[in-house]
């Protein structure tokens, strides 16, 4: 026990009290109080950015249409909230062609997908984009279930289910989209 008391004193390094001994005869009470703020932190997305590569078939019966794209996982390691009652909100923007021109009949300039954030609460926060063939309404958002206790976890964001609106042919070019993950108290709503 004596040894333990001495170790604590070394860590804190408060002068004066360090010299206290088990046999001292004079004591005084000092009240100290402090507040721990509510805090959430998300880990840095890794690996990022995500390049799904070529998205259209170049041969076969589905030539020109969306290819099968394997799911991708991005991890936000060591994410945490130090309070109870937090939730993940995920906002995904479909992959839309960087070419601003209007799309021809039978073609799409957007690729939709599902973003699923797991490992925070009992269930995942999941959203599927619903962009139109012309690239309209590219963004969708959803909030996951509440995490009832403080938690530290590696969040996994899985991107999957890549589809083209109406399964149209895809116009050529570079496409870009965005995934935004927000971690915060359940009541906060928007940011």
């Amino acid at each position, binding site marked *: 026990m004596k040894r333990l008391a001495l170790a604590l*004193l070394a860590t*804190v390094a408060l002068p004066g009290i360090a010299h*206290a001994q088990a046999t001292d005869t004079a004591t005084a009470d000092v009240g100290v109080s402090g507040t721990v703020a509510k805090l959430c932190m998300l880990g840095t997305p890794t690996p990022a950015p995500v390049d799904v590569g070529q998205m259209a078939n170049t041969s076969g019966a589905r030539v020109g249409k969306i290819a099968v794209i394997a799911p991708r996982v991005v991890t936000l390691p060591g994410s945490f909230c130090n309070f109870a009652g937090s939730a993940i909100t995920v906002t995904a923007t479909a992959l839309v*062609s960087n070419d601003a021109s209007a799309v021809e009949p039978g073609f799409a300039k957007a690729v939709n997908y599902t973003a699923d954030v797991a490992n925070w609460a009992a269930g995942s926060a999941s959203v599927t984009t619903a962009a139109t063939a012309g690239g309209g309404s590219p963004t969708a958002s959803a909030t996951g279930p509440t995490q009832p206790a403080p938690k530290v976890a590696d969040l996994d964001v899985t991107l999957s289910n890549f589809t083209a609106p109406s399964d149209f042919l895809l116009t050529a070019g570079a496409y870009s989209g965005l995934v935004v993950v*927000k971690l915060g108290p359940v009541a906060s709503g928007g940011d």
Partner: protein
Amino acid sequence: MTHNLKRLAVLSAAAVAIAWSGSAAAQSSDTDVKNFAVVGNVPAMCVGGTIAGTGSTFDMGVLIDLNTGLLRTDLAAPPKVLSGSFCSARSTITVNATPMAAQTFTSTPPAGFSRVVDYTATAAGWTTTPASFATGAGSNPAAVQTRATAFSGDITVSVGSFSTNGGATQRLVADTNYQGNVTVTLAVAS
């Protein structure tokens, strides 16, 4: 002794809390937002369609008037449709044609005769102005046409305006096989 330890523990916790908030002075929010980009690409490509039913050959049949030996003036064939062609980017359509030439009689014909029939091939439906190529013309500027956007659609190919190479008074040498070829090319444009 236990009481002192308890007090020490309280002080330790408080000290830790104070130290902590000092180093995180730049952010103290109950919400954090992180994002990452998702990118991909679609290659520029052109895919040719298929011709349904009738096959890809324009068979003009008997080319000459059997009474005069001269080229018939009523040569005509129904057009053919290439369905399901598309380009995912800006493209050009090019028509090329080689004249119908006698395949067995390959030597120079005697005076008054020809072994070549000229014609015009046209590809319509891809561009505002159809692409066309006349085999007897010195140049064919309309043979290449550009489409500024991605496109998917039918291309109608037709042949017409048949004429005897060398003049309308020349007769065709007898040959069971006169043949030329029309080629239609879709290519991604830069």
